């Protein structure tokens, strides 16, 4: 499964010399792709287009020979993509565990299995804590755990480690790598700078 971007653009993002906006680009299956650009270049918009949150664009996106707009949203978000949103999108009134279980229920993944993710990141003590009282760094780790739940082809990461200390970031990268090796999904990570969080196969500039 590959993602083909064919001259996509939006009215509100100016671009020049972009590998994505107005270009024809392919993001290959099982590859680690790094998309970087300064703030305001449309990183989040690009991920929103892929995730069908943004439909106001020109050009086309082909996923496995099928146009993105023809794919049913819930199917796309369960079997094709998983995501860590820049604004994390966790429910403050639920605990960290419940937030992850909301997605785990879709794949009939047990609570015990989910708990092992928390153990891997050494945040078991946060499982029953309400998200409304958690720090941004804690929430980022919960959002990363949620994104690893399910059987998907692409993991979309929008500045996922921005509020993590180096130790926590290492743990997260290790967990993501383990899952990537086991499940073979591709990673598309958007960030403001070039980084070496993963051994990228492809780097794209917005």
């Amino acid at each position, binding site marked *: 499964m590959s993602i083909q971007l064919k001259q996509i653009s939006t009215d509100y993002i100016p671009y020049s010399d972009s590998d994505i906006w107005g270009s024809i680009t392919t993001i290959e299956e099982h590859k680690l792709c790094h998309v970087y650009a300064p703030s305001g270049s449309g990183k989040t918009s690009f991920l929103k287009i892929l995730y069908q949150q943004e439909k106001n664009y020109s050009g086309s996106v082909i996923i496995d020979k099928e146009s993105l707009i023809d794919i049913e949203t819930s199917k796309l978000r369960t079997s094709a993509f998983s995501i860590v949103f820049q604004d994390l999108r966790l*429910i403050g009134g639920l605990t960290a565990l419940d937030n992850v279980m909301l997605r*785990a*229920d*879709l794949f009939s993944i047990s609570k015990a299995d989910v708990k092992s993710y928390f153990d891997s990141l050494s945040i078991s003590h946060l499982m029953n804590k309400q998200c409304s009282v958690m720090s941004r760094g804690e929430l980022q780790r919960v959002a990363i755990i949620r994104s690893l739940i399910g059987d998907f082809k692409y993991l979309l990461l929008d500045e996922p480690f921005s509020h993590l200390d180096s130790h926590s970031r290492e743990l997260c990268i290790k967990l993501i790598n383990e899952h990537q090796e086991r499940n073979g999904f591709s990673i598309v990570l958007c960030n403001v700078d070039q980084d070496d969080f993963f051994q990228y196969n492809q780097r794209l500039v917005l």
Partner: protein
Amino acid sequence: MKTIQKLINIDNKSYSGVAWFGIGLGIFCLMISLTLQLDVYELNQNDNSTSSNEGFIIVNKQIGILNALNDSSVKFTNKDLEDIKNKDWVLDADGFISNNYRIRLSSRRFNFRTELFFESVGDSFIDTDLDDFEWITKDNVVPLILSNQFYNLYNFGFAAGQGLPKVPKDVLMGLEFDLRVSGEGKYRDMKIRVVGFSDRISSVLVPKSFMNWANGYFGEESSNYSRLIIKVKDLASPDLLGELKQLNLEMNKELLGGKVVNRVANVSSTIILCFGLMVFLLSVLLITNALKLKVLAIKENLVLLSQIGYSQAMILKAYLRPLIKSAMVLVLLNTFIYLLSKKQINNWYKQLGIGIDSYSLIPIGIMLILIAAIVFLSRRVLVNVLRQNPS
């Protein structure tokens, strides 16, 4: 419990609880008022007079000091009768003709002898089977219709006091008694036989043909009437007593009782119906607003559910399931309370001597339709919110 239910339960339950309580109360009021309406309708259907408020009254002139000794001033003339007939609240009227001759009733078998009076009135005013209530001059047996009130008075008053046996209606109708009518130096021995009983007219009625013959033969024919029987358009009309008072007429107000009770029951049940409808509408407004507020309050959560992979159908199902559960509890609870209340109402009917013992299923049907409509409405609100807030 699926985690999505936890999300739904975050909302303020008490608000929904108040709304459901209101809906339950509103629907219950509707059911009770509907069943009362149906009972009143059934009562009217069973009423052998008419299903409308038409009815009969018997009136006489007020007797005062000035007219007490003047017999003709307390009687009605043909002109009085015509005047009454022309009133807009009157459907028909007739006068009671009294006997102007002596009547003596006796029975050797039962060893009694008594003076009696007869009256006659138009057949259309008599509330019993008139098949045998005919008389021609050569007939020696005079048919007679007795007031049920007199019959009961004999059985439960006179007979009980004198140690005489009670006489069943069938037996009484099988007996013939000796009758002597006399006057003007003439007499005729005849027989009388009871052929019916009247609830409406408290009198001893004989056919008009007999009365006219006997008055002409033994006394003098009079064109005056002692009392009038009037068929009125609306027996429960509050103006009726005023109209009679204006004409200086008296009537037995007891006759109005049944119709007035019906009118009061109708008005009461209509008030309850309106109240029930009002409570119900307010409750529907409350629950739809509660649902809208609930959905608006968690709109972001709904969007988020969609963003992490939940389909609209899954979200709808999750949100409607507790709603349907609450609706089902409401149906069971309301049905139970309704049947219990109806049983109590039927007991009260029994104590009041009203013959209604039915459990109408119409109110339960109406309740099911209304609650189904609420669930449907709630679903629509939810679908609209989901459509208006795509993720």
